[in-house]
């Protein structure tokens, strides 16, 4: 590895983009440095497959453009990790499942295409919880992702969070300057918090869902995961945009979020939802929340109390709506047109389905499909699904009312810091509670972000969450920037891999 390589892998999106544009280094040098870092980091199991050639080809294209004096794009020369939920043409796309093992799409997701069009390259396909169902990255068919972080004085493998755990691990470990994530009920924010990085889920509809393996259609949103608010703003600008192929895509221009960044929160009011003071929340998390208020006050914001009365019901509502949609979205994995086929001797069509799906889906996926199938089944639809969608309306209304009194909401991202892999596997419910603070914003489709605040006594990162009004990613990014500037989070995992 060349001498500068280590320095290059410490750079984020903005610095790489500006450095390539300014001629400080070539895009190829950057791609080579990250390819090497990725190759060294197999122990993290962050990538399902690596695509060094893709990164190099994109880099060479950018370098060639620069030689010709052409525009290099918003992400010109930045190699990124691609969550393996995004379909990538000619590159295996698995959703971390056995049922899609070997599936090679003949198409490119809109979001990944947007990134390539903006000059980014791909380091590889990042590991995740199978079909994005999980909060610890332990449900992948391709093995757990190990967080680069460890508790001080311990060698226990820690969870990078989930479902975008490959993304959070790669970015925290500096083997990718940024990565794509998707967030259905916290899958960008919770792993970002666990890994001490920044991640934003935009307003539902900002990023096209076309070509993203669906988990729960009414909740799924893609977003960037990087190490700074600025990097997230840049990458989100590249990812977002109207897509005629997605009927729920927002027909709105993409704001210049990077240019609009400002940490001055004068005349802004930040709401503190009282219902988020929940039992079981870690003391150190509560302390960092208090600290967050101080930081935002320091940035000029007024702190106000707000109420989100239906918070308690958001998580159970989510665990009806999301599995219901998933049970239907995952019906297409049947062994007929692509993916795994298990055809026992003498099996008929329906036997083939049952065998293929039994073989191809992991336990958590099966569990959620069964829950979803049950809550939609005859006689239960009203009691479960309809009731949950009504509660969802109430959760959404809570936010609308709160936003009458404030411009954004500050809350913890998670109730605890990262935990050792395997420690929460006995009870699915305990695992689900990880997303208790993240899920309400998902149910309401709101933009929400996690920024690193501090490390706890074990040396593990803690994140703070900002939730904004619909379409107000700028307000969220700005509040995030104010925290980032004051938190001065410089902790990074010590390299053990």
């Amino acid at each position, binding site marked *: 590895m060349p001498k500068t390589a280590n320095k290059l892998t410490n750079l984020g999106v903005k610095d790489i983009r500006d450095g390539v544009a300014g001629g400080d280094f070539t895009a190829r040098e950057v791609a080579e440095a990250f390819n090497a870092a990725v190759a060294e980091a197999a122990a993290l199991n962050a990538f399902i497959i690596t695509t060094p050639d893709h990164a190099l080809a994109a880099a060479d294209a950018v370098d060639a453009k620069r030689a010709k004096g052409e525009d290099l794009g918003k992400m010109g020369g930045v190699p990124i990790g691609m969550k393996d939920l995004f379909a990538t043409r000619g590159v295996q796309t698995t959703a971390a499942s056995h049922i899609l093992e*070997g599936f090679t799409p003949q198409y490119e997701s809109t979001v990944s295409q947007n990134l390539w069009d903006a000059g980014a390259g791909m380091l590889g396909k990042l590991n995740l919880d199978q079909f994005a169902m999980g909060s610890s990255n332990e449900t992948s068919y391709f093995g757990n992702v190990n967080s680069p972080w460890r508790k001080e004085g311990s060698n226990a493998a820690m969870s990078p969070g989930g479902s975008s755990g490959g993304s959070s691990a790669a970015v925290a470990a500096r083997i990718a300057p940024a990565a794509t994530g998707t967030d259905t009920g916290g899958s960008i924010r919770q792993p970002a918090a666990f890994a001490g990085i920044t991640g934003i889920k935009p307003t539902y509809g900002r990023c096209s869902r076309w070509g993203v393996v669906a988990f729960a259609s009414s909740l799924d949103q893609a977003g960037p995961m990087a190490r700074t608010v600025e990097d997230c703003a840049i990458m989100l600008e590249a990812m977002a945009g109207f897509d005629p192929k997605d009927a729920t895509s927002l027909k709105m221009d993409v704001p210049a979020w990077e240019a609009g960044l400002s940490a001055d929160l004068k005349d802004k009011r930040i709401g503190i939802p009282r219902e988020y003071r929940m039992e079981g929340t870690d003391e150190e998390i509560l302390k960092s929340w208090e600290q967050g208020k101080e930081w935002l006050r320091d940035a000029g914001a007024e702190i106000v109390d707000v109420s989100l009365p239906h918070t308690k019901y958001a998580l*159970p509502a989510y665990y009806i709506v999301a599995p219901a949609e998933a049970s239907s979205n995952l019906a297409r994995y049947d062994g007929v*047109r692509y993916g*795994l086929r298990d055809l026992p001797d003498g099996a*008929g069509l329906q036997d083939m389905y049952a065998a293929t799906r039994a073989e191809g889906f992991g336990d958590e996926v099966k569990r959620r499909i*069964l829950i979803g199938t049950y809550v939609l089944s005859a006689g239960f639809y009203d009691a479960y699904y309809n009731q949950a969608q009504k509660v969802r309306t109430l959760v959404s209304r809570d936010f609308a009312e709160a936003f009458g009194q404030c411009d954004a909401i500050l809350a913890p991202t998670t109730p605890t810091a990262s935990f050792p892999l395997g420690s929460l596997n006995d009870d699915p419910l305990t695992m689900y509670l990880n997303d208790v603070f993240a899920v309400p914003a998902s149910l309401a489709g709101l933009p929400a972000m996690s920024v690193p605040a501090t490390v706890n006594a074990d040396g593990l990162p803690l994140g703070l969450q900002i939730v904004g009004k619909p379409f107000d990613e700028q307000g969220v990014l700005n509040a995030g920037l104010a925290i980032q500037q004051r938190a001065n989070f410089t902790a990074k995992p010590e390299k053990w891999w």
Partner: protein
Amino acid sequence: MSVDKATVAKIASLARIKMGDEELERMVPELNGILDWVEQLGEVDCSGVEPMTAVIENHLRLRDDVVDAIPETAGGRREDVLANAPAAEHGFFGVPKVIE
């Protein structure tokens, strides 16, 4: 409401997931744990509340009736469509023989 093994077996069959006895047994308490927990939604007074339809204010867009308007959603790409098929024959997808 709680489920017993027979109900889980029925749901698994509806979802086309083959499950052995042992797996069914294991699923029963897991599913009941989750179902008991989501049961609390029943406490919420939702009278007069409409179920959520569009999470963000937005209208359903319709597209024009044009064949192959967008290449990514166009027809005429049989090779792509069949490229990943476990059994593609003579331009068809093959499945075990079905008796209607």
